């Protein structure tokens, strides 16, 4: 890496971009670089790191809004919100440890660029659903903004959605405004013990189709349950289906009781305390069951929830690995022993059969170069993606190839 830019102002970001533009240098864009392993390797001569461009510039709890510089650390934002009993409802995972960096290092820009979402996605949405607006620099070195600071806003195209999940390939975000929400007073988790995967999907569907506002629905097979730090889960000896209920105290108590009855007919029931509940969902969120096995590749699949068990079964028949479900079966975390193109083909075929996408989250460098990390695009979509790239970053300066070859 010839140059490492560490801008401290929006102007410096734009200048770094113009420098790259003038020399047609590829720039690797990052916040704190905690998720570098996600996506294809980027060949860049220079890197632009936003982590020093940090500050919470506006936080109005009663307006449910927070604006910060893109390099602001997520832990700082979460700390500030917690002081006011608020949170980022999309429950952003901390993927640092997954990619071998310490916990708590990620930045806001990275969270949005990767469109992070945790278990609460099913109830509250992903990062994309909470970005109200942003300012940034496009690949022509121009500073621009989109969106605003209010929740309801349809003024112009929703570019906030487009940059969420664009992995720094369209624009360098400098400021981001988020919708924030009150944190629930209480969190409780009901456990259904000993279900097979398909039965667990059925149980989760019943719970999610109930009026009890389930904010987390996950399934850990017996072998992965043992890895939990929660004693009752690790020692269960069987699979664990976990359903989370959050909200005001009296409401949580009643919903938990009703849910126990609803699920009781399906097997043995357990329950976690508020503290245990928070630990478990953090483990599920951060892919903790797979953290210790660094040799394996990790995939994230998003499929129609009712098809979760089918997809997992299809893959398991052909590929040596392990998986668990979040999002009621809609998100499958999969770790595989092999990381070949053939393995990827099996996984993608299983997903294609039901609709959805598969992302290679973590793999060795060779695999990251040869296997498509993001779901390959159909013809028309591929064309649109290339044209969007042309219209934000025509000279392919930003993170070239991070998502797709040539983009």
């Amino acid at each position, binding site marked *: 890496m010839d140059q490492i830019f560490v801008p401290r102002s929006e102007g*410096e970001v734009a200048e770094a971009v113009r420098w790259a533009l003038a020399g047609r240098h590829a720039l690797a864009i990052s916040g704190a670089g905690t998720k570098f392993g996600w996506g294809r390797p980027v060949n860049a001569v220079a890197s632009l790191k936003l982590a020093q461009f940090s500050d919470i510039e506006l936080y109005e709890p009663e307006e449910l809004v927070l604006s910060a510089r893109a390099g602001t650390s997520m832990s700082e934002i979460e700390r500030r919100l917690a002081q006011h009993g608020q949170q980022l409802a999309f429950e952003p995972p901390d993927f640092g440890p997954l990619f071998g960096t310490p916990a708590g290092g990620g930045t806001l820009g990275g969270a949005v660029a990767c469109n992070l979402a945790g278990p609460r996605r099913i109830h509250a949405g992903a990062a994309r659903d909470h970005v109200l607006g942003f300012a940034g620099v496009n690949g022509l070195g121009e500073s621009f903004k989109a969106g605003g600071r209010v929740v309801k806003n349809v003024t112009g195209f929703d570019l906030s959605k*487009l940059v969420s999940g664009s992995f720094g390939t369209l624009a360098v975000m400098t400021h981001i405004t988020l919708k924030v929400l009150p944190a629930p*007073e209480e969190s409780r988790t009901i456990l259904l013990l000993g279900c097979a995967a398909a039965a667990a999907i059925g149980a989760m569907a019943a719970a999610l189709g109930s009026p009890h506002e389930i904010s987390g629905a996950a399934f850990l097979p017996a072998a992965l349950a043992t890895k939990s730090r929660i004693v009752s889960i690790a020692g269960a000896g069987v699979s664990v289906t976990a359903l989370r209920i959050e909200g005001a105290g*009296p409401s949580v108590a009643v919903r938990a009781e009703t849910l126990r009855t609803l699920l009781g007919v399906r097997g043995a029931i357990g329950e976690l305390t508020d503290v245990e509940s928070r630990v478990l969902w953090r483990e599920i969120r951060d892919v903790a069951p797979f953290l210790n096995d660094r040799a394996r590749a990790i995939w994230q699949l998003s499929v129609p929830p009712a098809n979760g068990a089918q997809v997992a079964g299809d893959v398991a028949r052909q590929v040596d690995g392990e998986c668990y479900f979040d999002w009621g079966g809609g998100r499958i975390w999969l770790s595989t022993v092999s990381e070949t193109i053939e393995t990827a083909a099996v996984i993608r075929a299983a997903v294609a059969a039901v609709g959805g996408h598969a992302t290679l989250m973590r793999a060795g460098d060779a695999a990251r170069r040869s296997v498509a990390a993001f779901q390959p695009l*159909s013809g028309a979509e591929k*064309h*649109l993606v290339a044209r*969007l790239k042309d*219209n934000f970053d*025509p000279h392919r300066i930003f993170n070239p190839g991070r998502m797709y070859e040539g983009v």
Partner: protein
Amino acid sequence: MRMPEPDAQTIARKDEIVRSLIALFRADEGAAVIHDAAQLRAFECDGLSAYRARPLCVVLPETTEQVSRILRYCDEQKIKVVARGSGTSLSGGALPLADSVVLGLSKFNRILDVDYANRCVVAQSGVTNLSISDAVASEGFYYAPDPSSQVACSIGGNVAENSGGVHCLKYGLTTNNVLGVEMVLIDGEVVRLGGRHLDAGGYDLLGLVTGSEGLLGIVTEVTVRILRRPETAEAALIGFPTAESAGACVAAIIGAGIIPAGMEMMDRPAIHATEAFVHAGYPLDAEALLIVELDGPAVEVAHLRDRVAAIARSVGANSVQTSTNEAERLRFWAGRKAAFPAVGRLAPDYFCMDGTIPRAKLPIVLTRMAEMSQRFGLGVANVFHAGDGNLHPLIMYDINKPGDLEKAEEFGAEILRLCVEVGGVLTGEHGVGVEKRDLMGEMFSETDLNQQQRVKCAFDPDSLLNPGKVFPTLHRCVEQGRAHVHAGELPFAHLPRL
């Protein structure tokens, strides 16, 4: 309101274009092309009826394949296309252009799949918003975004406008509830974005298309998330002596960590207009009225009801009434839901504005609006999605009075400028359309708008889809980047590096 100069040559070719469009339908399909003046009248405007134009013709396909053929033809012939769902847009989004073909989706009226296991419904884009909820009501489910126009507006129109409703404070807008679309691009290509799973595996094109006002493609099919109906819902009517105290109440409720299912405010003129119309039992002595809806399990609703009532009293509410049964809850809402027709009885015409402001600015905005009302000599009543700061001033005027329309337009523009001035935006849910098009510069710089227009170029390089909407000036999609690249002076010595 100026629209792009119609192309005389295209207009002169009307008969040939109509014949060609008819010929695009196969014999067994039954062509549906409306081209005679009398029948076209029904398509001259949308919900913003002050603006009208007669299109060349209206074509009403019923399959995605037909849409694809029509668009391919229009693309080849460089004919403009305006998509139309149910025509309830309040921003002129579906306003035809004199040299355009209107592509109506009224025949896309089937629900294709109800999938309880995945908690979603797949519907053709012309299906009305309410019929989605109706289709799943027997199993206790519903589709959450509920625009007041829900009996009429189409789900495709909702996607195009990213519509909201009184419950979007808690349940989100269209964009938070759509899982997938099938869309036809201007060159006739069909793309499927999303599906029954969550989030994109790459760029969030679905999120981009939602709210794009018919400028990027024609949506033919929509997959939406459905939710189980809450066990109970209850509404409270709270009267306040001032708009400030009502605003303080909203802030205090949210500050206490409560997100009600809906939180609507009405000002004195709106209270009086609706009370006279539907007799909902609103307190006529109040300067501002809040309707706070709570939903969930009965215990939760009861718990929150007491907290909301206590908060309301602590900020000086005059009266708090809580609905004790479903009929009463609906009655509390009846006034709010009838606000538009109620105001319609007070004046021959009205404009419904749609700015959003940071909630704390409400008192100042209301005060300044009252001043404007005096100055323009036009009445204004306010209904307000208070929880999320979305303001709907209804400006009353008489289109038959010379100068009234222009005054109303200027009044509306001043309100929207004020919204932007206090940190808000031009439109919360109705879209830019033609109505707010020329105000875009109040909120966005030239560079901001250029970046958005380049997104348009990626989808529709010849700007054939709904031109003249959203963007104040039409740009040609030229090669990108040439003019902007300055030879950078290396080595940027003062930039901090590691």
